[in-house]
């Protein structure tokens, strides 16, 4: 069930209605039941995989928190961690075996949905219980926490401390109103912005001969924009849905494309993953090596990004993507202090644009299906074939997916919508994160979705395969 599908809307409406009328102690069971149905509709295998890991982790944690013996605790802890990591990597291995040509074929990967996201949550749960930061959950709470459907497929990755349910009173419906606002905003981002440019990127990345540097650069920009609106829209829907049931999930994106530096970018982009990596990989490593000053930080950065790259997929392209970001951050560390002096508007805009470029270049590696493809695209951007005299023929018709007037018109509509949303994103976000529903705003966004959205092809959500 895709989060932008009609089925999903029906599914949450139905669950919501039951949820409102059931007695308090039955509510968690309903949510678990719905979540199992949700996971099961993707494939029975994912449900089986989920339950297998779930039960195993539950009993490992139980053992850890009930045993007095330090050595058994330690052994159980290590066993649990090794098991989850082995689990992630065997899935990634099966994924490669299933489709070894393309890392962007989501069709076969439905099988592995959400398991990677969910495994990270289990690792943090194990660590936190082991170090006594949180108490062990009951089987019911733990099941609800890990299976809750809106975050199961692609996060936000939630840690136990932040996951709690507020039971909504009859007269206090602000969470529900906020939830509906968020879902509408997420649908808009995904259906109108991301889906409109998705086919352009899919089409152009498959072309063997990149023609112009300009085409490839714009393509990289568009992919960054697509990925951002796709994933953040998805997160909005997940967060909005959770609010309907009184659950507060953590924010995943904060105006990510307005970052002025790469380190700021990672505080705004896929925040739940960045936080997870910071707390469970980066801090422990840099703590260990902190006597080495800068070197400690550098080692920690590289290892953290390599882990993140490997988690995304066991492909060389992800490794390069990870190394590229490590280099960005390390260089950023050294130039951060000298650039502190500049604090004017022009410099901010320049920094935002520069950061956007760095990110876009790195995403070429993220998106490409092979290392050769990625390098040929990057090389093309920096070659002398950047411009052409016949832009309509060499540039526009690739980006518009056809040289007909209607294609070009469609492209202009997309570009207009994108720039509008990027320019006024903060204001729009405030409107659709409000605790009160504004019927006029909702009507307008609904009409925009109907008039400019894409409805026939929303199955390829980029982030579900990780």
């Amino acid at each position, binding site marked *: 069930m895709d989060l932008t599908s009609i089925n999903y809307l029906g599914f949450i409406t139905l669950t919501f209605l039951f949820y409102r009328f059931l007695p308090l102690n039955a509510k968690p069971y309903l949510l678990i039941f719905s979540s199992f149905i949700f996971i099961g509709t993707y494939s029975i295998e994912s449900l089986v995989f989920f339950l297998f890991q779930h039960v195993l982790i539950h009993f490992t944690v139980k053992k850890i928190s009930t045993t007095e013996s330090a050595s058994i605790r330690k052994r159980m802890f290590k066993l649990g961690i090794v098991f989850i990591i082995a689990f992630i990597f065997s899935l990634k291995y099966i994924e490669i075996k299933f489709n070894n040509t393309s890392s962007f074929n989501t069709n076969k990967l439905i099988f592995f949905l959400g398991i990677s996201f969910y495994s990270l949550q289990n690792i943090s749960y194990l660590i936190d219980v082991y170090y006594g930061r949180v108490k062990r959950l009951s089987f019911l709470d733990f099941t609800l926490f890990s299976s809750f459907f809106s975050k199961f497929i692609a996060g936000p990755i939630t840690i136990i401390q932040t996951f709690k349910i507020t039971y909504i009173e009859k007269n206090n419906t602000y969470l529900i109103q906020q939830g509906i606002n968020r879902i509408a905003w997420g649908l808009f981002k995904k259906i109108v912005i991301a889906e*409109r440019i998705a086919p352009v990127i899919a089409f152009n990345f498959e072309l063997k001969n990149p023609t112009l540097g300009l085409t490839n650069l714009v393509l990289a920009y568009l992919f960054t924009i697509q990925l951002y609106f796709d994933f953040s829209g998805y997160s909005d829907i997940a967060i909005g849905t959770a609010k309907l049931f009184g659950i507060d999930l953590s924010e995943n994106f904060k105006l990510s494309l307005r970052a002025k530096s790469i380190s700021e970018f990672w505080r705004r982009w896929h925040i739940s993953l960045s936080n997870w990596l910071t707390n469970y990989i980066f801090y422990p490593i840099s703590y260990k090596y902190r006597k080495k000053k800068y070197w400690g930080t550098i080692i920690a950065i590289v290892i953290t990004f390599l882990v993140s790259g490997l988690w995304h997929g066991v492909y060389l392209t992800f490794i390069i993507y990870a190394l590229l970001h490590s280099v960005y951050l390390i260089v950023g560390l050294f130039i951060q202090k000298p650039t502190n002096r500049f604090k004017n508007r022009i410099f901010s805009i320049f920094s935002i644009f520069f950061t956007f470029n760095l990110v876009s270049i790195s995403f070429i590696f993220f998106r490409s299906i092979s290392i050769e493809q990625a390098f040929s695209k990057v090389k093309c951007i920096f070659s002398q074939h950047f411009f052409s005299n016949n832009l309509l023929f060499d540039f526009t018709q690739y980006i518009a997916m056809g040289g007909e007037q209607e294609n070009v018109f*469609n492209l202009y509509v997309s570009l207009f919508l994108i720039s509008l949303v990027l320019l006024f994103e903060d204001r729009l976000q405030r409107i659709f994160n409000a605790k009160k529903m504004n019927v006029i705003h909702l009507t307008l966004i*609904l009409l925009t979705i109907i008039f400019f959205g894409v409805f026939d092809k929303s199955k390829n959500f980029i982030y579900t395969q990780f």
Partner: protein
Amino acid sequence: MKLYTKIFFALIFVYIVLLASDKIYGFFLNENVYLKQVYIQKKKINADFLILGNCVPNKLINPSILEKITKHKTYNLAETHANLTENYLSFYVYLKSNKAPKRLFIYTTPESFDPSFNKFSSYRFAYLMHDNEVRKTIKISDLNYYRWSFIPFAKYRYYNSPLHYSALQGAMHYFANSKKRIVHNGYLNFEELHKYRSLYPNGYRFKWDNLQEKYLIKLIFLAKKHGTKVILFESPFYSRKNELPNRNEILQKIKQIADKTNVLFIKFDTLKFPKSNFANNDMLYTKNIEKFNILFARRVLL
């Protein structure tokens, strides 16, 4: 509750907007004579020779050259990416307001039966969905679209289709009486590729869609019923040796259909144009198109 009343009225408002848009789009699309479906209805072509197919004949068969030799009025009704089911429906729409042509040329090549190359573009018939036969065909070819079409305006939106543009263009035609880019014989001039590009990955095996076969036969019978002589044809073709292992097998299958329905199947791949004449596997460079059209006209007159 106040909020629920507001939501209720908002939904009513959205519904009314959709209903109105549905009518407006339908009206303006019907005024857009740049669209072939509209043009053939409004302008009463009554051509002697009619060409059907996908983008290849659309760009390859130039009626103005043919007419000079054959002295028969010709119209190119081929549409980009159209499969045979769509060809059938186009012909059906054509017959509704035109005299049946003397001869009907249908482009049939292995690509025509392969769903990865051609498809049924339901949106091209969006404003004709009040017609029973159109509805029936769309239901078979594109069930999802058919289901959505019951919601007002959805039939203009279900695909990320170019219908916004077409409706605007129709409005221009209606208000400004603009005649820009109207193609009277259905033939489009186009910009060509600089360098030969193969369309197929090496060793590509053509797929066969039974529905296309069914509709090709249906199309042939529809034409015969109106006394039209049907000729199947394919374009000149270039491919490296063993590049397409099952191409000949598929061509054989097409020949069988032609024999079964008792129509002619003209193959042009025997002409052996050299590779330098081709922009891709089945498309000639502009300068060679004239040469081909003359050849085509002579074959047709036989």
